[in-house]
């Protein structure tokens, strides 16, 4: 395989217009600004190409969400109300359309990967997605960007077996509920223990149901856990589970709120840990699925650490291997 080392950074200036009301809401446009400027610092180690996503057809949203939920969300946004469901889920007039555009980043990234094997793709989107369920907005999330990307890959490119790795500090309840009965999608998540952490799901007990039994792997980490626990989970559990599953493509729910300076969780990850995760994940994707790996931003709210961690992660996934 010829490696043309490109990093596609998929993002859109309209993502900055999703207004979460100011005050002390942590999910701010500033998050994407710090990521963009941090990634600019990567140029030199690779070719950084910023790409705008195309807005997806609504049918792709309907692979994960219910039609009546789309209607409700659109109506709430256009009516000028300030949140959907819970005051956490602040929105503005444009939020419905921006949330759709956020799901488009994954789809555009998949198209690029299918055209240019060996590229790397990082999607900086907001609103985030992994807490969003079929008919419920939760924890700042409206549409489940990662889950929709998985369905797109399966349907458009017939990559049936998809593995999703979620290293956000919180459990991706929406990804889990989308796929818990689906034997073709593996969902692996490290997160702060649900007894303490939002949203309160992701116990090790939850392993999938029906035909999907055994395709959910939850690895709860106690508050105070750091790099050592995550590295151990990767080596001992995550890599073997993904290898055994033999995926055709890998989607990463890339959240950076486990950082020690981020007070959205009690996890104590270092910036360097994200470099480690990037290297491990890229190696896994190259070995198992010809480099078909896409990373989509979830959380990460402490701005300086968010920028530094995303940069470290992308440096990790770009690192050349023999």
């Amino acid at each position: 395989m010829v490696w043309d080392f490109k990093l596609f950074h998929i993002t859109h200036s309209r993502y900055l217009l999703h207004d979460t009301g100011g005050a002390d809401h942590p999910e701010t446009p500033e998050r994407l600004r710090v990521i963009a400027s941090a990634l600019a610092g990567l140029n030199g180690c690779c070719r950084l190409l910023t790409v705008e996503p195309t807005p997806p057809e609504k049918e792709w949203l309907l692979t994960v969400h219910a039609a009546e939920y789309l209607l409700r969300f659109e109506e709430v946004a256009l009516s000028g109300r300030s949140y959907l469901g819970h005051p956490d889920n602040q929105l503005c007039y444009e939020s419905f359309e921006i949330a759709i555009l956020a799901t488009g980043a994954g789809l555009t990234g998949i198209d690029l990967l299918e055209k240019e094997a060996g590229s790397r793709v990082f999607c900086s989107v907001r609103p985030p997605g992994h807490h969003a369920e079929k008919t419920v907005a939760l924890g700042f999330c409206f549409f489940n960007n990662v889950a929709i990307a998985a369905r797109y890959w399966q349907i458009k490119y017939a990559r049936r077996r998809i593995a999703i790795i979620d290293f956000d500090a919180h459990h991706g309840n929406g990804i889990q509920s989308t796929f818990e009965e689906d034997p073709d999608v593996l969902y692996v998540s490290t997160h702060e223990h649900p007894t303490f952490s939002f949203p309160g799901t992701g116990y090790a007990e939850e392993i999938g149901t029906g035909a999907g039994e055994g395709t959910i792997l939850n690895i709860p980490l106690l508050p105070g856990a750091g790099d050592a626990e995550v590295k151990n989970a990767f080596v001992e559990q995550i890599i073997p589970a993904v290898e055994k599953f033999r995926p055709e493509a890998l989607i990463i729910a890339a959240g950076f709120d486990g950082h020690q300076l981020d007070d959205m969780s009690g996890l104590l990850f270092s910036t360097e840990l994200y470099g480690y995760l990037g290297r491990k994940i890229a190696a896994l994707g190259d070995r198992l699925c010809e480099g078909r790996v896409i990373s989509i931003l979830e959380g990460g709210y402490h701005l300086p650490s968010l920028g530094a961690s995303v940069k470290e992660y992308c440096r990790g996934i770009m690192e050349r291997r023999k």
Partner: protein
Amino acid sequence: MFVTNFMTEPVHTVGPEASLSQVKELFGQRKFRHLPIVDQSGRLIGMLTDRDLRSAYPSGLMDENEKKAYLKRFKEMKVSQIMTETVAKLTPKSTLDDALLLFDRSRVGALPVVDDQQKVVGIFSIRDLLAAYKQLFGLGEKGSALIVVQDDGKPRPLTRLTEALENRNVLFSQLIRDVLSRPDNGLGLIYVRVHTHNLSGVHAALAAAGFYAVTPEAS
């Protein structure tokens, strides 16, 4: 907090004259293991468990003849011969805590719930108790997080803490002040379950009220 919100009703009952083989069939068909025994007007007179039934059943150690004779007798035996007559029971006014204490004391897996006339209105099992506390603790519900803060030792900590949360409209459910297992500094921990993802905002509000989140540790 009352058992009536969580008990199983209507409840299957039989009379004292029912035969053990009838009851055996009943246990086999249905998914319960505790059967209230009632008189003609539905008043509780005893309880029968699947365990009572099993111990009345011929044991595998008997030889064939012994077994046959015993089995014949078993078929003719009536519920009243093996039921437990003095049973612990709950009333529609019993709280979950009443039930917990009664379970702790009586060593049974389920308790009948009877009204003023001793009529059986439901049955409440340890599983029902677990389900009740699971619901009250918000377990399995999506959308909350448990914050652990250090009691600062100043007066009225709970008032100040809940005020800080309510002032910024943070919905919270559990509030537990752990006064029994205090760390070395003599100050306890306070646990509060907040129903929001904006934990950053919660931490800021608590800090403004003088509270700091701590990392809970298993000892």
